């Protein structure tokens, strides 16, 4: 509609469809919609999906908040489990948004508040003795805010009498400029619900008793303050998700930033995000590192042993962007112009290759999830000597690297120049030559 397409690519499309079996099923509507395909319509749909997936994250976080209210009303094991389940459900949409973090400065700057990890949990609550008592990097390593209303650390007294939203976000989070002082976000709520996972690479997650939140039968001490912390952290998460959802609306910062980059810049952002999450971040830091070291501390959702889903949905988020679709937790589909069709116009085979790679990644991820559902969670699979488990994880790394290689081809085909795919560092920085 916006763009009348030259004849040649259309021919390309029809040719491609005769060879592609996929044209019969998912992509049946593809050919008729190609008239809508343009760089800008792909970018617009990327924005719609951002809005839809942050909205979904918000809705599921609110559901988590409701179950936490019920749990705090009646702190039973059953209610604790319901809260845990709600947390797991809330992670599914959020992880699918992670692909937006890489490339969009507004998301990256905000992300630390909601998904920072790893954390020195001794900042927040009681921990096992093996955690240690001091750190040369972090004076707040063992501050235990739940137990201490006025801790004096490094000669300064912190007023922690009210564990309010503003105290958590403005004072405690990254206090003393130490990144591992994570006071807010999903992983803090996870720690408050599950407690430390002391099982190493054996199976089992954290096992905090529900009575840690009981007013009548308090375990772990200071239950009232722990309740206050859990409630404030959840409320804060809702605020932050709301901000990000709004940031993708018209006049929102993330949306404006992206549109200001122009068509080429916008596509570059999209593809950088897809490639960098898959490659440096997911394949590298979050998976291969843990695998090579057999180190459960490298688990992303370590307290809850939910890492398999966390990785699965990260990968799904990348696929969403490529196919231009998002199915929310109520099974509502958001769909529109997508990269897949854009690539098909130029190079049908490459589109096919990319979809094959995305499918391989998903099936490798699925194998990990299947194992986890049998009790062999990520930390078990990466355990030393677990040859079979190690292989399952290694296949994921290989699939992701493979996928990133094809992503780089997409970048070339779209004429976006030489973009380097990395991890979380320096993605929004334009590449330029010194002289």
């Amino acid at each position: 509609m916006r763009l009348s397409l030259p004849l040649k690519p259309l021919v390309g499309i029809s040719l491609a469809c005769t060879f592609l079996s996929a044209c019969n099923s998912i992509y049946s509507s593809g050919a008729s919609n190609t008239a809508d395909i343009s760089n800008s319509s792909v970018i617009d749909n990327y924005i719609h999906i951002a809005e839809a997936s942050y909205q979904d994250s918000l809705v599921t976080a609110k559901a988590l908040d409701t179950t936490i209210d019920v749990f705090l009303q009646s702190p039973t094991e059953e209610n604790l489990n319901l809260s845990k389940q709600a947390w797991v459900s809330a992670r599914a949409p959020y992880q699918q948004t992670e692909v937006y973090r890489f490339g969009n400065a507004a998301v990256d700057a905000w992300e630390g508040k909601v998904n920072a990890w790893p954390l020195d949990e001794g900042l927040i609550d009681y921990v096992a003795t093996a955690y240690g008592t001091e750190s040369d990097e972090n004076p707040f390593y063992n501050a235990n805010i739940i137990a201490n209303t006025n801790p004096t650390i490094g000669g300064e007294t912190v007023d922690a009498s009210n564990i309010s939203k503003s105290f958590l976000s403005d004072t405690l989070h990254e206090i003393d400029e130490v990144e591992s002082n994570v006071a807010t976000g999903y992983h803090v709520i996870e720690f408050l619900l599950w407690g430390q996972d002391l099982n190493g690479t054996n199976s089992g997650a954290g096992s905090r008793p529900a009575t840690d939140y009981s007013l009548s039968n308090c375990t772990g001490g200071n239950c009232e303050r722990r309740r206050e912390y859990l409630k404030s952290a959840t409320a804060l998460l809702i605020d932050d998700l709301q901000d990000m959802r709004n940031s993708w609306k018209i006049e929102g910062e993330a949306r404006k930033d992206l549109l200001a980059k122009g068509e080429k810049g916008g596509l570059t952002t999209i593809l950088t995000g897809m490639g960098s999450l898959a490659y440096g971040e997911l394949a590298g830091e979050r998976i291969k590192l843990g695998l090579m070291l057999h180190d459960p501390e490298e688990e992303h959702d370590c307290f809850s042993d939910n890492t398999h889903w966390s990785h699965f949905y990260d990968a799904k988020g990348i696929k969403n962007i490529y196919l231009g679709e998002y199915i929310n937790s109520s099974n509502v589909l958001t769909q529109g112009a997508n990269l897949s069709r854009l690539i098909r116009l130029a190079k049908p085979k490459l589109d096919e290759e990319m979809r094959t790679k995305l499918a391989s990644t998903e099936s490798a991820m699925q194998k990990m999830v299947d194992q986890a559902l049998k009790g062999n969670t990520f930390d078990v699979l990466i355990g030393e000597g677990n040859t079979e488990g190690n292989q399952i994880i290694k296949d994921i790394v290989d699939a992701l690297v493979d996928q990133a290689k094809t992503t780089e081809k997409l970048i070339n085909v779209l004429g976006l120049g030489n973009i380097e795919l990395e991890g979380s560092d320096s993605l929004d920085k334009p590449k330029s030559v010194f002289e």
Partner: protein
Amino acid sequence: MFFLAFSHLKQFLFLVLLMSYKFQNFLLIIMLVFCPSAVTSNEVLVGGSHTHQKSEKRLGFQHESPVLSYEEKLDFKVGQAIFEKIWVFAPSSTTASDGLGPLYNARSCSRCHKGNGRGIIEIEKSSSPSLFLRLSIPPTTKRHHQQLTSGKIGFIPEPTYGNQLQTFAYPGGRAEGTLKVKYTEISVELSDKEEIKLQQPFYTISDLGYGSLDKSFMFSPRIAPQMIGLGLLEAIDELDLLALADPDDLNKDGISGKVNIVWNEVANNNSIGRFGWKAGSPTLEQQNNAALNGDIGISSWMFSDHAGDCTQMQSACQQQTHGNKRRDKPGVNMLEAPKTMTDLLLHYTRFIALPAARNTKETKRQKGQKIFKQAGCQKCHHAKFITAKNTEHDSLASQTIWPYTDLLLHDMGKGLADNRQEFLANGQEWRTPPLWGIGLTKLVSGDEFYLHDGRARTLLEAILWHGGEAESSKQEVINLNNAQRQQLIYFLESL
């Protein structure tokens, strides 16, 4: 018979090789004479193909060599994560990250090598992890002398405190002490009457945890060096270093330059030293593993002592639980850092790319470069090498690089002396540090602390501390006019 023939064949082959080598040189000379453009190399790409051109200068020391393959690049990222890994005490829920200490200076590599740049000194804090003290005593017994003569150790460790002062300890344990540095100012007058204040450091060790130090103890403060281009420095041909060495100053240019000969843990012999402020380590791998053991207290295949730098006199420390134990398999000993991990660290530290030189076409820079040469700086800060033809990783071979170091030891005078031996390096000798990347120091590290102990706050201060063999070069800098001095600094900042 056959053996004899074979050995002759070997000699014959050797001769052929020698001849072809000479012939090659001959060819090279012809090329030099007739095609000068063939040898002009790109000074912008200071690390050859291991140079990056990314614009974000703050992160300028954290990129991988662009020549790495997809898979190698991923290992670089994994290695980087290990470099940034925060170690915890044993036993912990995680056998992979435990084993910290018992005594240590920092919990991660990146704590001291922040952004892979030079270390910074947090003067207001009791101890700065980026700066620590090496400790030793003069040899007193026959055994000490034998040990030093064998070349297996570079110095005699302080009997109680060991090789270095660790300022942190295990839970319930005592740190060895705290280290504080204070400065007094010294003035240097430049030719145009401008006065520059230098900081003379004074160190205080307090809260000694294990009794007093040996009466004759010696110490040497060391700040964390920058981490870029280390694989390339290792790839410089040994013969090139030996060719530059002139320990007895036979050419009478006032510059000696000697190789340090140090103990090589793997080859089990005395090798040329390249890494460390006194070139006390022969290979990058040994340097890495020594730092892991001494600074963080982590055992590796090369230095398998789980107690790090705890001495026999520190018995409680020796008995601490270590990360070598397998909780699931009692009796099975592992290394706190398994070989996989130290291999990844080696890969990472080997392939950190050099930032390209900036402003190379500007006249001001070119003038500065000329002054650098005229003042004789280049006699030690040797500008250019072509790396060896055969290296462990092909990409490091035959690279034209501009490190501005000869990796040799030079007498730097009394002002900088630590008066303490390390292998062949005497108390006034230091290894020429590479200057590549030095212009990004402030952006990368957040502050500037130059020289082995970080006493110099600016490049000019660092130059003015030069003495000994560099005395005349320093005088030349003092005699420059203000504009010329700025040109010189501008040149250094472009590196």
